[in-house]
């Protein structure tokens, strides 16, 4: 069975999905596929330069972080301060909100968690411990259907490795590295002001709460530029300007990779790729988008084509035809023939990755 070849024209179905998304933006529901949504935000650089004075500050920053798209599509949030550590104040702050979610019974019918960036790492620690902590408090553990990790930083980022070294080096040291770190952290790093950036070091992140569990993690991965591209050359393999692809895909090693798939580039080109040698248990890369940067994946940013991470076309144990738009693009040097083959989600550049996800699940 081979890949179907389809026309370049977006299907009626695609347009309908995109239109539905636009309409939903005005009257969103706080559920995905009938399940309450809990949001866990990523690293907030402002917390390093201006630490939150109160929990309401943390909540306000959390709400602002999601305001562009997900805020009114969620039932609850778990907000946390980025000037703290995952196994310290972050766990304490997050757990207070987990308690409330349990007391309100918001996950009695299974929740879907949506995380961004470092929210992946925070969620991993919470999921590993929440049942025991809640039961000790006489409360019901949260039932989680799945976690949607947008630009997940659970595998850390090399920018955090560099930030820790920069904090100990004199001002002359390697100016481009310092600028990249400053763009990422928003501060001139010092040994004591890095907060959760400590947890984002690749070795620290990959040694924190990594035991497998039964909750599926669906991964959505960007490949665009952040901060004018100055961080890219300091991250292993491809990246979204902040998080390396090895982390966002859920790869079992911190070795640099270029795609979540060994046979499909982030742009959707069918070609041999430096993909992950393995994935963490129950981690499923779903979409990649070469153009979407670290922030784009949670906003209304359009114009970036999404690529389904198809490793094979076997479903239910049988090989099936793959339903997606594929097309062939011929390079200038190819004298004849149909050109390179691409796979992508039809019409996905007309909507944002988050909206594509939301509207598809609420279809």
């Amino acid at each position, binding site marked *: 069975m*081979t890949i179907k070849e389809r026309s370049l024209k977006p299907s009626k179905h695609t347009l309908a999905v995109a239109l539905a998304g636009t309409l939903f933006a005005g009257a969103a529901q706080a559920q995905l596929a009938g399940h309450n949504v809990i949001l866990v935000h990523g690293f907030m650089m402002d917390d390093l330069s201006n630490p939150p004075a109160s929990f309401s500050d943390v909540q306000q920053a959390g709400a602002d972080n999601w305001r562009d798209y997900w805020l009114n599509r969620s039932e609850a949030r778990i907000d946390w301060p980025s000037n703290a550590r995952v*196994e310290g104040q972050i*766990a304490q702050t997050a757990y207070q909100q987990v308690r409330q979610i349990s007391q309100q019974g918001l996950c009695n019918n*299974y929740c879907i968690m949506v995380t961004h960036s470092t929210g992946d790492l925070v969620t991993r620690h919470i999921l*590993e*411990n929440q049942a*025991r*902590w809640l039961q000790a408090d006489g409360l019901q553990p949260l039932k989680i259907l799945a976690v949607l990790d947008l630009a997940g930083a659970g595998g850390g980022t*090399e920018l955090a*490795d*560099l930030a*820790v*070294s920069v904090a*100990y080096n*004199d001002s002359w040291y*390697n100016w481009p590295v310092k600028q990249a770190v400053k763009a990422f952290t928003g501060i001139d790093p010092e*040994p004591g002001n890095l907060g959760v950036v400590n947890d984002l*070091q*690749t*070795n*620290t992140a*990959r*040694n924190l709460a990594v*035991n*497998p*569990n*039964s*909750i599926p993690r669906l991964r959505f991965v960007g490949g665009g530029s952040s901060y004018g591209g100055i961080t890219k050359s300091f991250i292993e393999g491809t990246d979204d300007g902040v998080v390396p692809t090895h982390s966002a895909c859920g790869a079992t*090693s911190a*070795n640099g990779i270029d795609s979540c*798939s060994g*046979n499909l580039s982030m742009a959707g080109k*069918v*070609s041999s790729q430096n*993909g992950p*040698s*393995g994935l963490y248990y*129950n981690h*499923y890369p779903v*979409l990649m988008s070469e153009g979407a940067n670290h922030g784009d994946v949670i906003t209304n940013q359009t114009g970036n084509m999404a690529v389904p991470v198809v490793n*094979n*076309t*076997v*479903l*239910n*144990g*049988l090989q*099936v035809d793959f*339903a997606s738009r594929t097309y*062939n693009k011929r390079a200038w040097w*190819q*004298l*004849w*023939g149909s050109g390179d*083959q691409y*796979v992508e*989600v039809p019409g996905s550049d007309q909507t944002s990755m988050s909206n594509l996800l939301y509207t*598809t*699940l609420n*279809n």
Partner: protein
Amino acid sequence: MPNKALLVAVAAIAGVAATSWLLATDNTGRFSGHTTKLAGEAAPATHQADVLAASQPQQAQPEPPSDNALGFMLASVADDYRQTIRYPEYSIPLTPAQAEAYQGNRYHPVALPLEGDGEFVVTLDKFRFKRGEPILVAASLTGRQVFGDTMSATLESIPDRDREDSAVLESVEPGYYEGTVSSDHDPGEYRLIVEARVDSSAVRHVSTLNIEPDLGNFEGLERPYVTGNDLVIPVKFDPKNSGHYSLSAQLYSGNTPLALLQQETALSSGSGTIELRAHGSVLAGRDLQGSLQLRNLQIRQLPARPGDPTHYAYGPNEGYEFSPPDLEKLRDEPAVNPESEQRAQLLQQLADRF
């Protein structure tokens, strides 16, 4: 001479034709390896479902997926997830890459770029150290700069920034340095500061490691036995303190990883036994000859309250070898986990809409 000209002309035409044929993408015989792979073979990225599917009986003819790529992916996830939940959470199969990843306590070399193409790389053999064991530090410098003959390594506590220990790293060959720092310090998180001279200036490479408290002692295995559809492997561990512990270990047959086994339990201080279980779904029907091995034992004292740290300890490097009892009674049947089953049904309902 005219013959030579004719030969050159023929050779040139043949060359152009061959190049054109090679460059044309209709030439699937040369360039289509990747496309045929996409159309049927498992990808190099070893997904657990690829491994798991091998032991699955083929199901009835599936409904063709809808014309919706994301819907297809969700259906694919639901299918993969359905295959994983036939294994209980306490006994999951492992791909070789997962076996390496879940060994625990791994340290990936950390690189610091230098001016130009140079790099300053520090490597440790682990991330967490038992108090008292030596911390072997290996560092390398590459690039066009002029490097010093030695480096220094300093262990600094977090957050107090007390300098707990320091050592000189000697050059073992050009550009490579080694030395040892003591870990006989209070348990906690530390920064390892390795300082080199690069073009006569100091450059510091800083990374993080942990010194773990003594959680207790592994005291070997009790006799494994079969009950229900599980091979039970009791691991004796005498904890220093009461608490909630999670033990994980990898079950091997020779060099083949069979499963990751994990169990959470409350232990009282003094002595304890944690029963790891290997489910029939990872053992039945396999050609297992001779003894089995339990490797990469890792025990964690889990945080009693949010904000408490997780503490780690590790079993003997060589693991434990044991002769299994008769495994004939084990069956390759799916595990029963109501919550995972419900999760799979909900995912399937989600996927069925496409």
